[in-house]
């Protein structure tokens, strides 16, 4: 059984500091939903508000349509996987998994049976009597998940649970988490600062910055059609050209940048004279001459060969370089350091957004 989670104008303040500012969101039952943002953006605060450790300063949290105001974390149909897992070190693996059942007054034999079932599910059959400290990192991870699932929550909340694992294991666990979610069918709310995790696992992603939800969409949309400069610069690599809009026509706009007039899509319907930023992703830039408003010239600062692709760094207008990513069989000749190089892109791959805050590098 799963339940949806609704945030209705939720604001959370700590003294004078606003951690979450007027967040409104509708997470559907059975969805794998991620909050993505840099540290300190308020995503953990949202998670703690949903789980009941924090009360919103204003607004409402509803789970399964029911207002959660005044209901403690131990009475909510949610279960939380902590960043450091917070397994009980003095209990065995089985005791950990069955703890939620123990506090519900369920008898020992039922508890043990349920724990064994869950151990089976997480591929740790027969290891219930071990101490938690005897397990490997990945095994602990799975025990934490089993412990949370044992209480049959309607919503599972995960607070960057993979951050302590090494890269290889992290990638393996992504698939595994997604598989578990599909098997149990409950709502997963996942907190992360790692866009790879968010993009691969989630049905939908909310990108957050400074306590504000910037955009809610599925992974492909967040990547291809970011709504704000922050999302455009935070999710994936992006090249930004700041300037003023000089022409608008047919859903496209031309921006006067230090590299001349450059065009891109204009989803925000900017008008002539507006301050704007044009975003073009490194893989959309190609070496060679193109249309007049879709190509420019700059000096090659450095070249980095990475096997399946090559990054060419061109001198940008500010301190930051412009990155051009050339595929293995891109065809074009890679320019040498110090050369002048002309690059172009497809107008549909340029994106003009109103000027605003960008992600810090």
């Amino acid at each position, binding site marked *: 059984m799963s339940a949806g989670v609704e945030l209705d104008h939720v604001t959370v303040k700590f003294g004078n500091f606003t951690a979450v500012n007027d967040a409104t969101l509708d997470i559907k039952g059975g969805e794998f939903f991620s909050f993505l943002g840099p540290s300190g953006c308020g995503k953990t605060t949202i998670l703690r508000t949903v789980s009941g450790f924090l009360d919103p300063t204003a607004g409402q949290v509803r789970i399964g349509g029911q207002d959660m105001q005044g209901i403690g974390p131990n009475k909510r149909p949610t279960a939380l996987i902590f960043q450091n897992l917070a397994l009980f070190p003095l209990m065995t693996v089985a005791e950990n998994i069955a703890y*939620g059942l123990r506090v519900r007054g369920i008898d020992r034999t039922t508890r043990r049976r349920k724990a064994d079932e869950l151990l089976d599910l997480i591929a740790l059959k027969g290891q219930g009597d071990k101490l938690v400290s005897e397990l490997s990192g990945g095994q602990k991870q799975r025990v934490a998940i089993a412990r949370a699932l044992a*209480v049959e929550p309607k919503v599972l909340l995960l607070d960057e649970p993979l951050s302590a694992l090494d890269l290889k294991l992290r990638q393996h666990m992504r698939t595994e988490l997604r598989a578990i979610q599909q098997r149990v069918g409950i709502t997963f709310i996942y907190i992360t600062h790692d866009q790879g995790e968010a993009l691969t696992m989630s049905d939908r992603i909310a990108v957050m910055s400074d306590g504000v939800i910037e955009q809610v969409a599925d992974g492909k949309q967040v990547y291809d059609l970011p709504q704000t400069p922050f999302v455009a610069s935070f999710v994936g690599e992006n090249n930004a050209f700041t300037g003023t809009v000089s022409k608008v026509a047919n859903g496209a706009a031309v921006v006067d940048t230090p590299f001349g007039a450059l065009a891109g899509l204009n989803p925000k319907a900017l008008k002539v004279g507006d301050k704007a930023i044009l975003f073009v992703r490194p893989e959309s830039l190609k070496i060679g001459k193109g249309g007049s408003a879709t190509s420019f010239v700059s000096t090659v600062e450095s070249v980095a060969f990475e096997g399946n692709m090559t990054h060419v760094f061109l001198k940008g207008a500010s301190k930051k370089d412009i990155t051009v990513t050339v595929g293995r069989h891109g065809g074009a000749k890679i320019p040498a350091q110090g050369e002048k190089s002309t690059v172009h892109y497809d107008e549909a791959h340029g994106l003009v957004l109103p000027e605003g805050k960008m992600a810090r590098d």
Partner: protein
Amino acid sequence: MTSGKVMKAMLGFYIAIFLLYLFGPLMVMSVTAFNTPTYPQAYPFEGFTLEWFGKLWEHRLLMEGLRNSLIIGVGVVVISVPIGLAASIIMNQIYHRARSLFYLVTVSPLLTPGVIIGISTVIFWKDALGLTDFTKATFYKGIVLSILGQSSFVAAYCLLIIMARLTRFDRAQEEAALDLGASYPQVFWHVLLPFLKPALLSASVIAFLSSFENFNTTTFAILADKTLVTVLAGEARQGTTPVLSALAVIIITLSLLGALTYELLKRREEAAAERVKENARIAERGEAV
């Protein structure tokens, strides 16, 4: 000889002198316990005897004192450890100035000479318990006052010991239990208390031992009763007898045994921890494959 070697030799000499200062008096005293003369002398050694140990058992006051000391020790543990636990939990949940004030009040008994604690305990409780005839008859006793007086500062020891461990408690553990549906009292009994168990144990041991060997506070608070230490003090004041040496030998032996047991337990614990770590390493390797 290089200057480094000179330094080393001097250091060795210094440590030897220090240990001699520490153990010399105790060793001399131990020898007198086995020597025959009625005046406790180490030299000349006139003959080996166990007579003084036998006298110990026949010493009625000493045995009565020992009984009282044990009762008081247990009483102090029963009162001080829960107080220390409660105080550390409260201390952990208050902030800034409230915390400094609390700290000042709770550690003040450690900065007060023991005699003053004893005196104030007697003066206060004499009047407080004297309010009704019943309380006066039932509680105005040396054993009760000693427990109260000693608990005053022993609880502060307990607070410091328990607090040291409590600050290392991971709040996420508490939240995890709550999140799984535990009530706050359940968190306390299932998660916090097991975590604090080692600190509670050492607090109990320290509390019992400090109570057992306390003299300054007890000598006032004990009124007309006696503890082992006040009997000892009376004996030692009246004169020197090898019986005291014999008692000291017993205490030294017990302390040595205690220290050895402690060391042994610690070694075993370390070995067990090492085994657990090894298992985790094996599991980690299994995962990598």
